[in-house]
Each structure stands twice: as structure tokens, then as C-alpha cells.
């Protein structure tokens, strides 16, 4: 009888990284809801503090900062739009010709940005502390259908592959003289021809992928074997149920109109 190699039965180690993936998903769902349902600054502040503290102890602050940086264009646009265009705002900070940034616009914009960052960092923390196959193994253990699991896994794994393919096509187009540098409209003109080959290439591969899966008994009936079962100890289960209860309570209180 063969013993499975250590790299297959490996268990993630370290604070939060070793926490059960399903538990982390439910905690993230609670944080997302809290960021939007709790009124004023309380929601985003509490969630951001919790996520940042967890990321710091799990040594994932740098990764989280990268996600934050990636969100900066949308953060900037939210701030600008609210600063200058918040309907009904009449407390100008200054006059800049026809434009008048307002205090209430700034305040509302900052709060919206805080909610957005709280929401996205809660999800990013799951991504940064969980490998895809651990997440899939846990979802499978919890009884999620193999087709649903495959869709989740393949979708997540396809992102870097699609980016890689887009890079290859972009290089090929540059090699044929297409100008993809310079001003934004010129870059956009270069990106449009890229979209076709990437999207259609992915679609044409779908049939072959489907057949390849069938050739590997993907549609066999019964339960799939799991080579690795993620940890699900007492603390994981306690955290899961506590987060679930808090989530239900939060939604219930909100529906009852007690959160203002």
C-alpha cells in the first residue's frame, strides 16, 4: 500500500493560514456584510481593524497592501465623484471655478472608500491565506457537488492563465507592429484587438477541456476521493458557528430596522 507523499498531504501552518478554508469563507462573508450593514464608520472601521490585525499576525500585510494598491484607481474615482458631485451637498470646502468640493462629499466619499476597502480586504485575506486546492477539498468535504467545485476551481485558476495568454497575444501583436504604448486612447486601441483572441481562444478550448474531463471519469457517480482533508478542529468549528450566528443576527437586526 502506497503512502501519499508529504507534499500531497501537507497541512498549511501558521496563524489563520491553517484555519479551515470554509470557516475563513464564512468569516469573510460576515465581514463583508458588517462593512455594509453597520451604520456610519463603525462597520468599515471594525472590519478593517479585524482584517489588518489578522493579516499582520498571519504575515500577509504586504500582500494586502498590493490588493489595496490595485484598488487605488476605483478609490480615487469614488473620492473625486463624491467630493465634487454629491447630490444635495451645500458645505463647500473651497471654490475652484465652476467646481465646489464639499465637506459632506468628502466625508461620504471617505466612508464609501472605507467600506469598499473593508469589503475587498476581507475577501483578499481569504485568497492570501488559502490555497485553491485546500478550499476545493474543504468544499468537497462539505458536500458541494463536483461540478460546482470544478467551476470554482477552474475559474480561479484560469485568471493567471488568461493573463499569461493575453501577454503572449500582446507580444505577438507588438511584434507585428501594433502600437500599444503611449496615450490612453492609443493603449485602448491596442487592447481591443487583444480581447477577441483571448475570449474566442478560451471559448474554443472549452469543448476540448470538457472532453478531456470526461476522458478522466469526471462524471462518474458517487463521492469523489479526497487526497487531503483540511483541518477542521474545535476552534475552526467554534469560529464557523460563531461567525454564522453573528451573520444571521446582523441580517436579522438590519431587517428589523434596528441599525438605523
Amino acid at each position: 500500500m502506497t503512502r501519499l507523499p508529504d507534499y500531497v498531504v501537507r497541512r498549511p501552518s501558521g496563524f489563520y493560514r491553517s484555519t479551515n478554508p470554509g470557516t475563513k469563507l464564512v468569516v469573510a462573508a460576515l465581514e463583508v456584510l458588517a462593512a455594509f450593514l453597520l451604520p456610519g464608520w463603525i462597520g468599515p472601521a471594525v472590519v478593517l481593524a479585524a482584517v489588518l490585525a489578522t493579516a499582520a499576525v498571519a504575515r500577509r500585510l504586504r500582500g494586502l497592501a498590493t490588493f489595496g494598491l490595485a484598488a487605488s484607481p476605483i478609490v480615487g474615482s469614488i473620492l473625486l465623484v463624491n467630493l465634487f458631485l454629491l447630490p444635495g451637498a451645500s458645505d463647500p470646502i473651497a471654490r475652484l471655478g465652476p467646481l465646489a468640493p464639499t465637506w459632506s462629499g468628502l466625508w461620504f466619499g471617505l466612508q464609501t472608500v472605507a467600506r469598499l476597502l473593508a469589503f475587498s480586504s476581507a475577501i483578499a485575506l481569504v485568497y492570501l491565506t488559502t490555497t485553491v486546492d485546500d478550499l476545493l477539498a474543504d468544499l468537497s468535504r462539505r458536500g458541494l457537488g463536483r461540478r460546482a467545485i470544478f467551476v470554482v476551481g477552474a475559474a480561479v485558476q484560469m485568471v493567471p492563465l488568461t493573463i499569461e495568454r493575453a501577454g503572449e497575444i500582446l507580444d505577438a501583436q507588438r511584434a507585428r507592429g501594433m502600437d500599444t504604448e503611449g496615450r490612453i486612447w492609443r493603449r485602448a486601441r491596442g487592447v481591443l484587438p487583444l480581447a477577441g483572441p483571448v475570449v474566442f481562444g478560451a471559448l474554443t478550448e472549452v469543448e476540448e477541456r470538457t472532453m478531456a474531463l470526461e476522458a478522466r471519469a469526471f462524471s462518474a457517480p458517487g463521492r469523489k476521493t479526497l487526497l487531503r482533508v483540511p483541518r477542521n478542529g474545535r476552534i475552526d468549528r467554534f469560529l464557523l458557528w460563531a461567525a454564522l450566528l453573528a451573520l444571521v443576527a446582523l441580517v436579522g437586526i438590519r431587517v428589523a430596522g434596528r441599525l438605523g
Partner: protein
Amino acid sequence: MAIELSAVRYRYAGASVFALRSIDLRLEPGRVVGVVGANEAGKSTVCLVAAGLAPGVVGGLLEGSVRIDGVETATLRPHELAQRCGLLFQNAATQLSNTTATVFEEVGFGPCNLGLPVAEVGDRAWWALGTVGIEKLAPRDPARLSGGEGQLVALAAVLALRPKYLVLDEPTSELDPAGTSLVAEALGRVARETGAGILLVEHKTDVLARIADEVVVLERGAVALAGAAAPTLADPRLAELGVEPPAAVKLERMVREAGIEWSAALAEAIR
């Protein structure tokens, strides 16, 4: 005991013409049957039909009979077919499940789908990796392999289901010479060590000359030539059928045309 295609005609869904017009083919365990032909000759379609995926998964209309060990493929479900006949495609990248972190798990993906006990999944994965000769790749990330390595992993993944027959659709078409050589060696080893019957569609006739026992030449969906590998690959009609003969055959012709006597010793020296 064999895969048998008798008077097979097949038309893809929505197509007005038959991609296969008249195919009779037999693949026995332990034999390697090569299939060659020009573009649109029906090579890939033969693979899908022989493995039972057409019309079962692909759709379309099949006439005639396709049997694996006496059982009509139309009566078998895809996972049952997969355990009888493994199918390998041209592009290694599209054959990976994209849900595993290591090559070992990728090879074990099929046995896991069957719900086999963990120990047996491990046994099969090691056996398949060993048969293909890629145990060293086991801890690697499947998404970070070269084309040749990826194709070997896909081959091992199919083998892990322990099929009695393998249908390989141009497994070296996207590989460089080094990758082609890797895959050809592995196929030779698989044929010798597993006793599986292999139907190998391959336009690189040098590969067929190395490992095929028989060769079938297709033309517009029908069998144009068939027979033992060496004489079929040396048949002068091959070029008319859009197939380039192996380098050794071309060399032999050049030597003869130059008026030099061709001998077994010379052939051996060139090989």
C-alpha cells in the same frame, strides 16, 4: 478482445457531410496502430469515435458499429468508457484539470473521480508516473511544465485509469523535437510495459516508424491504405495522400536514385 470499428460513418451535429465515410479498423491489446492522413482526413474524428466520445459526449450521428471488447460504446457512460479506453489530445494545457497543486494530484484526478480508496489512488498515480518515466515531476505544479512534460503528465493521468486501450490524437503536434522524443519514448515504454492497445494519430511518421505495428492512412474520411507499419510507410502512394514518409524512407529513395545499392547494413548504420 479489441476496439472494432465496422463500416463506421459519422457526421458532426449541424454538419451536412460525413467526416467519416467508411472506416473499418481493429485495435488489439498490445498492438500500436498508427493513423495518418492529410488535413480533414478524419483523424481526430476517428479518435473521438473510437474512444466513444462521439457521439456520446460530442453529439452527431453515428452509423455502423463501434465496440470495445464486444460492447457497443453507445451503451457505455463516459466514466465507463474512460476506464476502458483512455484519450489524449494535442494540447497538454487543455487536458489539465486546473484544480490540483501538484503533478501527483493531477495524475490521481481520474482515480479520485472514481471514488477509489486513497491507497489505491496513490498506487495508481505512482504506477502511471513510473510507467511514463516522470516520477521526478510528481511534486511540481502542473501549470508550470514545458509542453513535452505537460503531455507526459496528461498521458500518465489517462493511464492512471488503467484503460486497456489508449487513443492518442497527435500527442506530439505542439512539441519541439526534444518534447516529441520524450513522448515517443514514453509511448514505446507504455506499449511494452502495459500491454495496452494504442491507436496513435500522428503526422510525424518518424514517430510511427519507431513504435507502430500497423499503419492506417485516411483520405477524406475513409481508409485509403492499411497494413504493417514498415511497408505502408514506404508505400509510394503516401505522398499522393498528403503524408510525408519517414526520414529513413526518404533517405533510402535518395540513395537508390543516386545509384547506390541499398542494404540492410546501410539501413542499420543510418539508424
